C-alpha cells in the first residue's frame, strides 16, 4: 500500500450544519490518474481543497506518501509544497509576468536560484507552446493560455501529486482541447493526478480510475470502461443519463 501517493480515508467535511463530504475514501497510486465526477455541488471541489489542506476536515485522514498530513502537528505549508493545484479560474498573479508566475514557487519556496528557475520555467513554457509569452502579463493571454500557464506554475516545483479542479469549465469549447491535450501528455509522462471534471469523454480516455460522488458520498469507483459504461449503481446511471442528455458524453 505504501506506493500510494495519496490515500483519503473516511473523509468528513461539514460546512456549519451541512455535511458536504461524508466518509469519502479515495486512493491515487504513483503515475495514476484518478478522475472525480459528479453533479454540481456533489463535493468534488471540496474534496480537492481538503486534500490540499486549504480546508479543515471534520473527520478521517489524508495520507500523502504514507504520511498523515491531516495531523495538526504537520505543517500544512510543507505538505502543500508536495502538491500542485490548478483551479477552475486559473488564479494567476496578475501583477507578475508569466515567467514570474511560474518561477515564484521554485525560487521563494524551494530556494532555486533565479537563473536556474527561469531556465526551467522557460523550458516548461516551451513545452506547452507558450515560450514566446514568458514576458507577458496574464491579462494579455487567452483563457486557454492562462490555464496552461497555471498548470505549468503548479508543475514548476515537481509536485508528487497534481490536483486539477474543473480546469476547463471556464474555457470556450475550442480552448478546452488544448488544455486537455496538455493533461493527457502529463499523464503519459507519468504525473500523478487527481482531477475533477465534467468532460466525460476525456475521463473515459485518460482516467485509470473514475470516482463518482453524489451528495458528498463516494457512490462507486473503478475503471472508466466500467463506471462510465456499465455502472453498478442506479445513482451513477441517472447521473450519466443526464450527462448524455446534455450532450457531454
Amino acid at each position, binding site marked *: 500500500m505504501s506506493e500510494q501517493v495519496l490515500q483519503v480515508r473516511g473523509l468528513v467535511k461539514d460546512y456549519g450544519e451541512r455535511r458536504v463530504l461524508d466518509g469519502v475514501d479515495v486512493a491515487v497510486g504513483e503515475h495514476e490518474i484518478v478522475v472525480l465526477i459528479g453533479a454540481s455541488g456533489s463535493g468534488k471541489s471540496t474534496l480537492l481543497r481538503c486534500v*490540499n489542506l*486549504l480546508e479543515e476536515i471534520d473527520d478521517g485522514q489524508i495520507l500523502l506518501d504514507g504520511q498523515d498530513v491531516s495531523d495538526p502537528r504537520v505543517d500544512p*505549508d510543507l505538505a*502543500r*509544497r508536495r*502538491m*500542485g*493545484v490548478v*483551479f477552475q*479560474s486559473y*488564479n*494567476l*498573479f*496578475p*501583477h507578475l509576468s508569466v515567467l514570474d508566475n511560474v518561477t*515564484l*514557487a521554485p525560487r*521563494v*519556496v*524551494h530556494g532555486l536560484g533565479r537563473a536556474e528557475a527561469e531556465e526551467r520555467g522557460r523550458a516548461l513554457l516551451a513545452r506547452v507552446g507558450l515560450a514566446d509569452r514568458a514576458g507577458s502579463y496574464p*491579462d494579455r493571454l487567452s483563457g486557454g493560455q492562462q490555464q496552461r500557464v497555471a498548470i505549468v*506554475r*503548479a508543475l514548476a*516545483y515537481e509536485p508528487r501529486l497534481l490536483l486539477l479542479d474543473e480546469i476547463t469549465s471556464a474555457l470556450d469549447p475550442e480552448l478546452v482541447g488544448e488544455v486537455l491535450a496538455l493533461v493527457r501528455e502529463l499523464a503519459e509522462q507519468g504525473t500523478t493526478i487527481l482531477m475533477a471534471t465534467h468532460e466525460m469523454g476525456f475521463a473515459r480516455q485518460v482516467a485509470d480510475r473514475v470516482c463518482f460522488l453524489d451528495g458528498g458520498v463516494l457512490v462507486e469507483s473503478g475503471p472508466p470502461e466500467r463506471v462510465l459504461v456499465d455502472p453498478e449503481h442506479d445513482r451513477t446511471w441517472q447521473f450519466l443519463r443526464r450527462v448524455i442528455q446534455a450532450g457531454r458524453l
Partner: protein
Amino acid sequence: MTVSQLQRDRLAYKRSRTRRSTAVALLSTVVFAVVAWFAVTSAPGWSTVRSSFLDLDTAVSALPAILDGLWLNLRVLVVCELLILVLGLGIAALRTLRGPVWFPVRALATGYVDLFRGLPLIICLYLVGFGLPGLRLSGVPNDPVLLGGIALVLIYSAYVAEVFRAGIDSVHPSQRAAARSIGLTHAQTMRIVVVPQAVRRVLPPLLNDFVALQKDCGLISVLGAVDAVRAAQIATARFYDFTPYVVAGLLFVLLAVPCARLADAAGRRLARREGSG
C-alpha cells in the same frame, strides 16, 4: 498604405470639430474671466482688499522668507510621508494577522487606528508639541519641527493604514488560496502576492492623502516652527498687510496641483485596467 476617400473625409471632419471645440472653449473662458473680473473689481470694498491682500511690493519683499519656510515644509513633507507609508503599511499588515497568539497585536493596531483617526490634528499637535516636552523627560526632543512631524505621522499613518487595509481586503481570496497552494507562507503570500496588488489599487487615495498632508504640514507653525505659514505671519505683522498669506496660500496650491493631477491620472489608469481585466 493608402487611406480611402471616406476615411479621409471622416478625419477631416473630426479635425474641424476639434478646432471648433477649442475655439468655443477659449471664447467661453475669456467671457467668464471678464465677467468675474468686473464682478470682483466693482465690489465696494475692492480697493481696500487689493491694497491689503494683493499688494505686489509686499509680495515681492515677503517672498524670500516664505520660500525659505516652504523649503522646511517640503522637507517635513518628504520625511513624514516616508514614515507614514512604512508605519501605515505595517499597521495594516498587523491587522491582517490571524490566530489567537496575535490577538494583542491586532487589538493594539486597531486601537491605534481608532484613536488617531478620531483625534483632531490640531489637538494632537498641541498634545505632542506642548505635552511631550512638558514631561521634562531626558531624551524627549523640544524642537517644534520634530514634534510637529511626530504629530503628523501619528495622525496620518492611521489614515494610511486604513487605506492599505481596504486595498488588502480588496484582493480576491482566490489569490491568497493560489499563493498558499503553491506553498507560500502567510508572510510570503502577503509580501509577494497581496500587498503589491493592494498598493496598485490604493495609489489614487494614497496620493489624495499625500495632498492633504502637504497642506497640513503648514500646521506645524502653531508650535512655532518657522515654515511658510509662520514666515507669512511674520511678514504680515511687519508690513501691516495680509498679502504674504495670499502668497503662501498660492505656493501651497501650486505645490498641490501636480500631485492632484497625478492622483487623477492614477485613478483613470486603474479604472481602465480594472475595466479591461
